[in-house]
């Protein structure tokens, strides 16, 4: 089955969504997704950041779709032509969605624990407007502890429902869902019940913003001062492979998370023992540094040499010019 996205054609199997077809191509044509999570069934369709324009329905029925569609929940058809970055309509709609997402989200990234690895921060930077037009109070909530290891701060939540799906599908019984309606709806556990489950910690990893945070790591350090290292251990939980990322500061393991791919999705869900209890280097077999993409703030200041990099390359012409300039400036 052939799908064309922004003029790039790709062969995908039947039943692939437009978003996943775009991910096969990769690069700039991939629509951003805040709520879709490929490992959680039923997720997606809610945040509307992945809206795309279908300019040709399929080979059989070439009519364009009347409205922009959510690419994460729309199945690609043979011969479909999709416009993402090439459609001004999509760019405009996406900008609108980002603005809506940020209406009730506090703009205090400098004091947020998620800063540096926040999907919403990246999204706002890439697709949003520089200024807000919203001039009213934002909704606020008190912080709630759900269990002794996880903290929920609803103020930052964008209601992507990922954690609800996680609690529903990864853990064996669901005690956590959405209360109320509209912009005052909130993630909550059933009558303040503590989330107590071997896999509950995964809700922290799936959260695209800083609404669900790890209490054992919260405000210990900024994420870009820590070094991600891949490691594994022989976990005795049958569903956990024990493959994780350790986040080092000096010699200390500050936190343990699952390994996340370039779209912020975990490779394997990990159990709470690995996540919260194994924080010594001796518990783990180190594999090597975790690759972090160049544009991420996490990759800055890492693995540097003790000497500063040479300013001028080993080019005699440049060295000569530099010397001349230096002499001229000292003379003046």
């Amino acid at each position: 089955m052939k799908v064309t996205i922004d003029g790039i054609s790709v062969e995908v199997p039947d039943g692939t969504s437009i978003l996943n077809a775009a991910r096969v191509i990769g690069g700039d044509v991939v629509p951003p997704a805040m709520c879709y999570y490929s490992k959680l069934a039923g997720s997606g369709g809610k945040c509307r950041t992945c809206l795309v324009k279908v300019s040709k329905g399929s080979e059989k029925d070439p009519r364009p779709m009347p409205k922009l569609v959510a690419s994460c929940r729309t199945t690609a058809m043979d011969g479909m032509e999709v416009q993402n970055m090439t459609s001004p309509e999509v760019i405009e709609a996406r900008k609108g969605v980002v603005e809506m997402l940020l209406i009730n989200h506090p703009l205090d990234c400098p004091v947020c624990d998620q800063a540096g690895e926040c999907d919403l921060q990246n999204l706002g930077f890439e697709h949003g407007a520089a200024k807000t037009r919203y001039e009213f109070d934002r909704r606020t909530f008190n912080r709630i502890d759900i269990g002794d290891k996880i903290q929920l701060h609803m103020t930052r939540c964008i209601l992507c429902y990922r954690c609800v799906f996680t609690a529903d599908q990864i853990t064996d019984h669901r005690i956590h869902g959405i209360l109320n309606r509209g912009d005052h709806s909130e993630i909550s556990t059933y009558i303040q019940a503590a989330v107590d489950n071997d896999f509950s910690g995964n809700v922290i990893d799936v959260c695209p913003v800083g609404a669900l945070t790890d209490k054992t790591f919260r405000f210990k350090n900024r994420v870009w001062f820590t070094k991600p290292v891949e490691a594994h251990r022989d976990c005795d939980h049958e569903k956990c492979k024990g493959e994780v990322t350790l986040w080092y500061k000096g010699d200390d393991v500050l936190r343990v998370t699952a390994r996340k791919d370039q779209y912020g999705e975990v490779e394997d869900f990990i159990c709470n023992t690995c996540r919260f209890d194994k924080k010594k280097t001796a518990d783990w077999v180190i594999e090597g540094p975790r690759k972090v993409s160049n544009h991420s703030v996490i990759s800055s200041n890492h693995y540097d040499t003790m000497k500063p990099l040479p300013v001028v390359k080993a080019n005699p012409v440049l060295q000569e010019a530099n010397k001349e300039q230096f002499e001229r400036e000292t003379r003046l």
Partner: protein
Amino acid sequence: MGRKLLLEHINVPGINTFEVYRQKGGYASVEKALKKMTPDEVVEEVKKSGLRGRGGAGFPTGMKWSFLAKPEGVARYLVCNGDESEPGTFKDRFLMTYIPHLLIEGMITSSYALGANTSYIYVRGEMMPQIRILEKAIAEAKANGFLGKNILGTGYDLELYVQPGGGAYICGEETALLESLEGKRGNPRIKPPFPAIAGLYGCPTVVNNVESIAAVVPIINDGGEEYAKLGIGRSTGTKLISAGGNLVKPGVYEIDLGLPVEEFLYSDEYCGGIANGKRLKAVVAGGSSVPILPANLFLKTINGEGRLMSYESLSDGGFVSGSMMGSGGFIAFDEDQCIVRNTWNFARFYHHESCGQCSPCREGTGWMEKVLHRLENGHGSMSDMDLLVDVAKKIEGNTICPLGDAAAWPVASAIRHFRDEFEWHVTHASEAVTRNYGLAHYADPLPKPEPKPEATA
């Protein structure tokens, strides 16, 4: 005087009981359909009638029925949408209260046509009296052999249940209704799949409005072609209009589609004109979610033709100068009403009722509500109007379900047609909180449409 099909016997005492309803020819359509017709013939008859969904979207009912998937060994369901909660619309409640057997009869005939053996009537939670009335009617019908096993000895089984909802507007959206009926949180589903393929419990399902189902009764009794003779063009048959607002005689009226709006508004048979001798300022023609129109554009289309009460004529002019038939919630505003306040009130409703699933609607409705509240109370600025139009544009079409559109249209249309009233609320802020803008030029005759410039060679 138009012919009454649904409300013909509405004034007969005791029509809400089985005996009186049966004496007046009730349940004839069930006998006719079950004994003399095949299910496909019933569907064909409804198709021929051209009946369009009475819940708001106006999708042809017969077409919807024929889309129903019919896989072997999978149950099919008919669900009646009685979650009527649009501000301004109260026709279904009227029907369920006073002539409940009409709905039961329609449900039996329609379920037979679709091959459903279990059907549900989903009624909004606030309508507890209507729920009791319907349950009583179902019990009466069952006692007389019109429901249950082997109806009228034809071998057709049907169980009918009434399900009270929780009272959320969003549960009137068909997929949210199905979620709620399944016992889940009433969030609209992402389509496709459509309910005709995978609806209630994953089975093929048809969801119809109360009035659409009731209209099946006269269609089967008289034949689809006879029904199609009423009305005009593609708007066939009769429609219940719940007229409210500043009218001499507000209430539920059954009209032939194609009735001139002037006649509906001013004749003594229907609304009887504007109350207290005032003048008409604006009209919301089909429930709160359709675009609001000023009096002059409502009575005449932009081309100077008189408007009719029909799906096509009301939407003449598109969103620029037209409105929609919607669910038939007709609200008239006289010269003393404030459009800004009314728009704020609608926006407040949609803010309260947004389910919070998708971001544009969840955040945008609240934003519009706050800006309108500021305008109404004299703290607005001139840029607010453009802001509202822009926010409405960003909600519209980008949401999972039509609630986002329904929230955006009234705001966008109010600013389009009543911009000077909004601006007056900014320029005369202190005055705006003490008095209203008044009629202004909203009832002035429309300017003559400019003749098209002749093509120059």
